[in-house]
């Protein structure tokens, strides 16, 4: 919530700064419609955010100003000087309150009634309240211009290329090992920097979605409606700027959906729907775009009504209106100043949203599309370009060329060997049979006319999933996985239909990103279920089988782990693995993940790890080498002895240990911190803060160095003989510097850890 508030403050501050010019211009010419719209949007946005952040004072002010501005827009009021002054006073006041919220200072609200009263038509010019001088709090975050980040990013790419060039040149000559070491260090720093710089621009769309459940709940609550919200695709990454710019449109659309779309429970029942409306918000990546879909099962848009309103308000010439097709008529919803509802509510107001929404989305090169089913719901799809997004890709080799494939479109990668994969030709078409499942096979080399089309090449299959179906793409090799910045390629390159964009990886050679769906189209694949149906019977037998990853463990054993527990398998640099605080940990993606391994990793520079997740906790398991995906037989011989082994299974006649995911995760479980408040009665030597505090916090005590204000501490630790005021702490534990207990002293030697912890436990236990 604090984050959201901070963002609201920063945003409002920024808009206010941008708006100051508009305000002056509006003051000079109150009939200027564009300025009026800008100010209207500002108060509307503030109103929207306030309702959600629970800032009633701001909500009241902005709602009042919005009402008046709406009246001006509708031509019901004339923007005279008094009105302009009153509105500007409110805008100023909003700024003051925002500053006050930020600095935590109080601001009395006595004059706000006056400000609002001044908006009334018959109000006499009020003496404006003096502006309170609220000191600006220093901000904890910096808002940067994205241009700057762009420049940083391209500078970074230059740096990587320069490093590569340098490395290439040094490789050709015998160089001083010291120079090599320096280059090595440079490389590491550059790689780290690149990662950081890249991340400065990227954000999970979760940043946008996380606020939605609360907002939907509150909005629905205010309206007496029931709405079940489901969110999907929160981990899609999007350019930070895009996220910022998408925030308002999304809020508007969702408020509209709850307010106008979803009907009241009684109406829904009457219409034969479930009482609780459904709202589905999802994000996914498709080719070079991110799609954000907001679907509700409400009443949809009443298009006839839109037309009637447009006619009444004379928004569109009658002739144009008559000539409109259904799509164009539906698009009237985007017309400024038009709403399909007559009643004005505090939630979404007057349909002002949709024109702002479209303007914002088009501003970032996106598009918005409506799919309206009157009486059954409305689906809004927002298309946002992928430009500058970072994509997680798999780099594959065909002939002597390399291509990237978006990782999310690759289901699985397997080698053509052994029993699990078979390749046949049916008529002209090649078919790969993978564990009993038949998939159309496309040879990338043949499709692109490079490499050797058959035989020794095409040793590897990537199972590509598209929206229509799956197919196997035959490639020569999987080379690497890489996070890449993908940009659109030139039109003549995109026109081939097989590429989704281009990128410049660390190698310094441009690389093309393959478009999984495009390849299927070019290869002429038509997805029907016929191919799969032959195997239905087989599939029926296999319902019980659990797919698992077979791998060579570090201690030389073959082990398997159910696929469901594995998020992904990826090679990591052993530099990222350290024994810290009694446990091996892997630093990856800015987070620490506990790492398990069956044996020491040894002196290799890179090790494949299984990233395991149960949805909440993540752990890593280092292995020697992944082998293939197998089906676990139903019979598992139970394990004897300790260690994270669940049992032994037979796979291809070989004994394979089954790793116990449950044991791995349960080892991560730690008892909840007890969260007992411990007041350290510090003596100025700093001993308590530096020596004692970390130990206590690790043991689950929350430490403060000031006497707690609101509630008494559970225990106070002191080194003084002074009396502690009763009421501040429930228990007192006294420490002494001297190992020898002075006579009659009920104190504990300060390094007697066991006694100290026990005394504390006794003290808080008696609570």
């Amino acid at each position, binding site marked *: 919530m604090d984050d959201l508030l901070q963002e609201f403050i920063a945003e409002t501050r920024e808009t206010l700064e941008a708006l100051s010019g508009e305000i002056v211009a509006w003051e000079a010419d109150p009939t200027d419609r564009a300025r009026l719209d800008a100010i209207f949007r500002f108060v509307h946005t503030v109103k929207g955010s306030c309702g959600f952040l629970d800032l009633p004072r701001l909500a009241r002010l902005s709602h009042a100003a919005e009402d008046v501005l709406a009246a001006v827009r509708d031509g019901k009021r004339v923007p005279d000087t008094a009105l302009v002054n009153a509105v500007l006073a409110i805008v100023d006041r909003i700024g003051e309150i925002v500053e006050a919220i930020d600095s935590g200072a109080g601001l009395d609200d006595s004059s706000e009634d006056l400000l609002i009263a001044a908006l009334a038509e018959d109000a006499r010019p009020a003496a404006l309240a003096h502006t309170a001088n609220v000191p600006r709090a220093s901000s904890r975050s910096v808002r940067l211009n994205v241009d700057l980040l762009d420049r940083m990013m*391209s500078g970074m*790419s*230059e740096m990587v*290329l320069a490093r590569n060039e340098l490395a290439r040149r040094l490789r050709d000559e015998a160089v001083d090992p010291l120079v090599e070491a320096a280059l090595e260090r440079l490389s590491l720093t550059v790689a780290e920097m690149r990662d950081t710089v890249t991340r400065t621009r990227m954000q999970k769309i979760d940043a946008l979605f996380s606020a939605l459940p609360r907002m939907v709940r509150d909005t629905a609550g205010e309206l007496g409606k029931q709405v079940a919200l489901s969110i999907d695709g929160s981990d899609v990454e999007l350019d930070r700027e895009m996220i910022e710019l998408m925030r308002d449109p999304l809020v508007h659309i969702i408020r509209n959906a709850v307010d106008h779309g979803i009907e009241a429970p009684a109406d829904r029942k009457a219409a034969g729907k479930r009482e609780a409306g459904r709202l589905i918000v999802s994000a996914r990546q*498709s*080719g*070079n*775009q991110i799609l954000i879909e907001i679907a509700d099962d409400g009443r949809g848009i009443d298009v006839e009504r839109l037309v009637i309103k447009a006619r009444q308000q004379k928004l569109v010439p009658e002739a144009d209106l008559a000539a409109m*097709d*259904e*799509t164009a008529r*539906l698009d009237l919803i985007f017309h400024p100043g038009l709403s399909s509802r007559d009643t004005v509510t505090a939630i979404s107001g007057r349909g002002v949203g949709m024109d702002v929404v479209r303007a914002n989305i088009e501003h970032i090169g996106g*598009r918005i*599309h*409506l*799919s*309206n089913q009157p009486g059954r719901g409305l689906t809004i*799809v927002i*298309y946002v370009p992928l430009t500058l997004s970072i994509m997680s890709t798999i780099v594959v080799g065909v002939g002597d*060329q390399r291509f990237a494939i978006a990782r999310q479109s690759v289901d699985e990668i397997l080698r053509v060997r052994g029993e699990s994969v078979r390749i046949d030709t049916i008529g002209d078409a090649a078919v790969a049979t993978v564990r009993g499942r038949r998939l159309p096979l496309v040879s990338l080399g043949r*499709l*692109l*006319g*490079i490499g050797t089309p058959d035989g020794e090449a095409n040793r590897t299959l990537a199972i590509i999933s598209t929206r229509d179906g799956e197919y196997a793409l035959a490639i020569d090799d999987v080379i690497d996985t890489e996070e890449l910045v993908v*940009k659109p*390629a*030139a*039109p*003549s*390159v*995109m*026109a*081939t*239909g*097989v*590429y989704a964009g*281009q*990128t*410049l990886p660390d190698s*310094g*050679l*441009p*690389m*093309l990103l393959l478009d999984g*769906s*495009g390849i299927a189209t*070019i290869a002429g694949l038509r997805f029907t279920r016929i191919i799969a149906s032959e195997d239905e019977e087989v599939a029926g037998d296999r319902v019980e089988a659990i797919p698992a990853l077979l791998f060579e463990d570090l201690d030389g054993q073959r082990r398997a782990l159910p696929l469901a527990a594995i998020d992904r398998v990826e090679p990591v640099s052993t530099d990222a693995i350290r024994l810290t605080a009694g446990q091996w940990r892997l630093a990856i993606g800015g987070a620490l993940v506990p790492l398990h391994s069956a044996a020491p990793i040894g002196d290799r520079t890179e090790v494949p790890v299984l990233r395991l997740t149960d949805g909440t906790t993540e752990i890593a398991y280092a292995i020697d080498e992944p082998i293939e995906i197998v089906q676990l037989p139903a019979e598992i011989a139970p394990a004897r002895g300790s260690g994270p082994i669940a049992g032994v299974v037979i796979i291809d006649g070989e004994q394979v240990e089954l790793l116990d995911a449950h044991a791995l995760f349960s080892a991560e479980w730690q008892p909840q911190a007890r969260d007992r408040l411990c007041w350290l009665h510090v003596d100025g030597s700093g001993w308590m803060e530096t020596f004692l505090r970390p130990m206590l916090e690790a043991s689950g005590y929350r430490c403060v160095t000031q006497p707690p204000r609101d509630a008494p501490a559970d225990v106070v630790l002191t080194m003084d003989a002074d009396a502690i005021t009763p009421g501040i702490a429930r228990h007192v534990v006294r420490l002494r510097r001297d190992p020898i207990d002075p006579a009659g002293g009920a104190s504990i030697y300060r390094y007697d850890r066991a006694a100290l912890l026990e005394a504390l436990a006794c003290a808080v236990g008696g609570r």
Partner: protein
Amino acid sequence: MELFLIAQIAGRGVAIETGQVDSVVDIAQIVAVPRAEAAVRGLVALRSRVVTVIDTGTALGLDATPDGARRAVITRVDGHPYAILVDALEDVATFERQPLSSGLALDRGWASVGVGLVERDGEPLLIVDLAALVPQTVATAGASPQPLAA
């Protein structure tokens, strides 16, 4: 008087408006773009950008520019950077722009790229529009949304 870059393309001297020229470079290793039309030689990294390389000979409907050609003029068309391969670069100088002589029948690709003439030491040189060398596509591929059901 305008400033022109004098270059050799497909064995002929041509003039290029300097306003169209972003920079003049020797390009590095070209990465092919399978399935793209022949005039697209491939992609090349130019500092941190990826640039599409145009095989000028093929674009003009003449013999392909030799594989070893490395010298290129960088230009920008519709926001995308292109490297136009040239045989050689000769000079930058100001010339008087003249219209194409009437009755002059330019053959093949020259007709679509020639926009005028300059005269250097009595020798007429064709002014070439770099943008016309870039293959134009009518429809760009990509995920475009289906029209909404009416």
